C-alpha cells in the first residue's frame, strides 16, 4: 500500500508555555477529504502552518507522500505538492487577478514553461472557480466571496497533491457556501487530497470523509462525520452545552438527527 499523501506523527508547537498544537497524528490517504474543526484557538490554523512550514514544529514530524519534510521552508514544501489558502486572504495587490493566479503556476511543483503559459493556465483555473470575468482587475476591488475564490485559485494553479483550505467559507452567504462546497466536491472527484479547516459545521460535514475535532491544541475526537455530529464531547466542546441540550432533546423527541 502506498504512503499516505499527508502523515503527521506527534506534531506539536509550543509558544512559550502554551502548546498551540500538541501531539497531533494524522494520516490522509490519497483522494480523501479530511475536515478539521474546533473552537477558536483550538490550533487549526497553527496545524496548517506546521504542515506548510510557515511555522517550525517544536515536536513531531510531517511527511508528504512518505517523504519527511519536517522543518523545511514553505517553498520546499510547496514544491513537494502542498498548496494552501490563508485564513486572512493574501492577494498580491499590485498584480492583476490573472497574474495573482499565474504566480502559482510559475513557481509551483509543476512549473509552467513560460510566463505566457502560466497566464494561460491561470485563465483555466479562473474559469473553473468562476472568476474569469475579473481576470484583468486588481484584487482590491473584489467582493469577499470573490477574494476567497481568488485565494483558492492561487492554490489550485499550483496543481497540488495536497490542498489545505483554511476557512475559505468564513463570511460567505449560504448560496456562496454551496458553490464553494460544490467546488471542493468536484476537486475531490478529480482525485485531489484535501484538508479543510472550517468553522461552518454544515459545510465541513457534507464534504469530509473523516473529521478531526481539535480542542486546546489536541485531538478531541476523530471519526466519520455522522459519528462526530452525535458525539456528546464534540457537541459540548464545540457547540456549547446549551446546543448539546437542544440536540439531545430533539433527538429524544423524534428519534433521529
Amino acid at each position, binding site marked *: 500500500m502506498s504512503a499516505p499523501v499527508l502523515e503527521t506523527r506527534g506534531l506539536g508547537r509550543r509558544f512559550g508555555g502554551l502548546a498551540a498544537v500538541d501531539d497531533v497524528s494524522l494520516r490522509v490517504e490519497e483522494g480523501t477529504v479530511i475536515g478539521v474543526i474546533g473552537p477558536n484557538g483550538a490550533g487549526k490554523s497553527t496545524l496548517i502552518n506546521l504542515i506548510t512550514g510557515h511555522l517550525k514544529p517544536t515536536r513531531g514530524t510531517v511527511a508528504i507522500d512518505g517523504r519527511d519534510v519536517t522543518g523545511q521552508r514553505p517553498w520546499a514544501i510547496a514544491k513537494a505538492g502542498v498548496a494552501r489558502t*490563508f485564513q486572512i486572504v*493574501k492577494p*498580491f495587490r*499590485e*498584480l492583476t487577478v490573472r497574474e495573482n493566479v499565474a504566480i502559482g503556476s510559475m*513557481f509551483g511543483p509543476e512549473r509552467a514553461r*513560460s510566463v505566457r503559459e*502560466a497566464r494561460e493556465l491561470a485563465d483555466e483555473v479562473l474559469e473553473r472557480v468562476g472568476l474569469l470575468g475579473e481576470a484583468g482587475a486588481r484584487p482590491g476591488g473584489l467582493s469577499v466571496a470573490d477574494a476567497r475564490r481568488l485565494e483558492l485559485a492561487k492554490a489550485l494553479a499550483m496543481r497540488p497533491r495536497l490542498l489545505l483550505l483554511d476557512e475559505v467559507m468564513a463570511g460567505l452567504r449560504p448560496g456562496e457556501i454551496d458553490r464553494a462546497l460544490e467546488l471542493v466536491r468536484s476537486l475531490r472527484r478529480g482525485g485531489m487530497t484535501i484538508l479543510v479547516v472550517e468553522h461552518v459545521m454544515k459545510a465541513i460535514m457534507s464534504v469530509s470523509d473523516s473529521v478531526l475535532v481539535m480542542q486546546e491544541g489536541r485531538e478531541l475526537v476523530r471519526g466519520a462525520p455522522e459519528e462526530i455530529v452525535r458525539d456528546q464531547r464534540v457537541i459540548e466542546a464545540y457547540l456549547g452545552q446549551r446546543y448539546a441540550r437542544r440536540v439531545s432533546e430533539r433527538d429524544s423527541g423524534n428519534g433521529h438527527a
Partner: protein
Amino acid sequence: MATPTRPASPAATVLGRWRIARPRGRWLALALVALAGLAVLLLAPHYLLLGSEQRTLGSVFMFVALAQAWNIIGGFAGYPSFGNVVFFGLGGYTTAILMAKAGASFWLTLPAAAAVGVLFAVLMGVPVLRLRGHYFAIATLGVAEGVREVVINLDGLTGGNSGITVPAVGPEAVTSYPGNTGFYFYFLALALAAVAVVWLVSRSRFGFGLRAIAQDEDAAAAAGLNTTRAKVTAFALSALITAPAGAIYAFQQVTIYPARLFDVEITVLMVIMVVLGGSGTVLGPVVGAVALQYLSEWLRTNYTDLHTIIFGAIIVLAVVLLPMGAVNFARESWAHRRVSLLETIRTYRL
C-alpha cells in the same frame, strides 16, 4: 489551404485587424523612437555637446544606472536598501587599488569590481535580507557606513582619508584617460545595459517573483517561490550594475576618497529618483534620474547659496503630490482620462 470559408462581417474584420494592428504598431513606434533617441545620444558628443555638457550627461547616465539598480531590489522586490552605495564604493576602490597598486588595465578591473560587488551582495544579503521594512533599511545603512570605516582604516591599501590616485597620465597609465567623451560613452553603455536588464526582469518569471515578494512574502513562499534565493539574486543583480558604476566613476575622478565613494547621499538620490520616477517600472528610474540630476544642476548654477534647500523642498513637495511616481501617475491619468493630483493624494495618502 486555410482560406476562410465563411465571410466575416466587415465590421468584425476591421475590428479584428485593428486589434492585431494596434500592439504591433505600438511596438514599432516604440522601437523607432528608441532607435532615434539612441542615434542622437551616440552622435551628440561629436556634434552638439560641449565637454562640460558631456560631463553632466555622463553623470545623468550614471544615476540612471544607479537608480535602475536600486529599482531591482527596492522597487521590484520591495526591499528598501539604504546601503546600495556600498557596492558603488567597493567597485570604485577595487578599480582604484588594482590600477594603482597592481598596474592593471581599467578593462580588467571592471569585471573585478563587478565580481567584488556581487560577492559582497551575496555575503551581506543572506543575513540582512532576513529583515524586513525599516529593519532592513537600517541594517543596510549600517553595513555601508561600517564598510566605509573599514576602508578608511585600511590606509596601507586604500590611502585612508587622504584617498587613492589612479595613474591616468604619463608612462604609468596602463589605460589612457578617456576624457569627457570617453566617460560619456562608458556611462551611456552602463545606463543602457541597466535599462535592458530591468526591462528583461520586468517581463520575466523572476520579476513576477520579486513583485510577489514585495506584496506578500508569505504568500509568495506558499506558491513555491524560493524567496531567499530570489531576494539574494535581486540584491546581487543590483550590485552587478552599481559596482561597475563606481569603477567608472573612480577612473573618471582619478583621486577618490571614502567620504565621497561611500556617501550616503548617493544612496538617498537613488531612492528618491526611483520613488519619484515610479518604483517597479522600467521607465520610472530613467525619468527620475534625468529630472533630478538636471534640476539639481540647474539649481546649483542659478541659486548657488540656496540650491540644497530648494532641492529638498521640491523633493518633499513631489513625494506628497506624486507618491506613486511620475510614470505610474501618468499611466493612471491616461487610463482614467483624467488628471487629478488631489485624487492621488487621497488614494496614496502617506
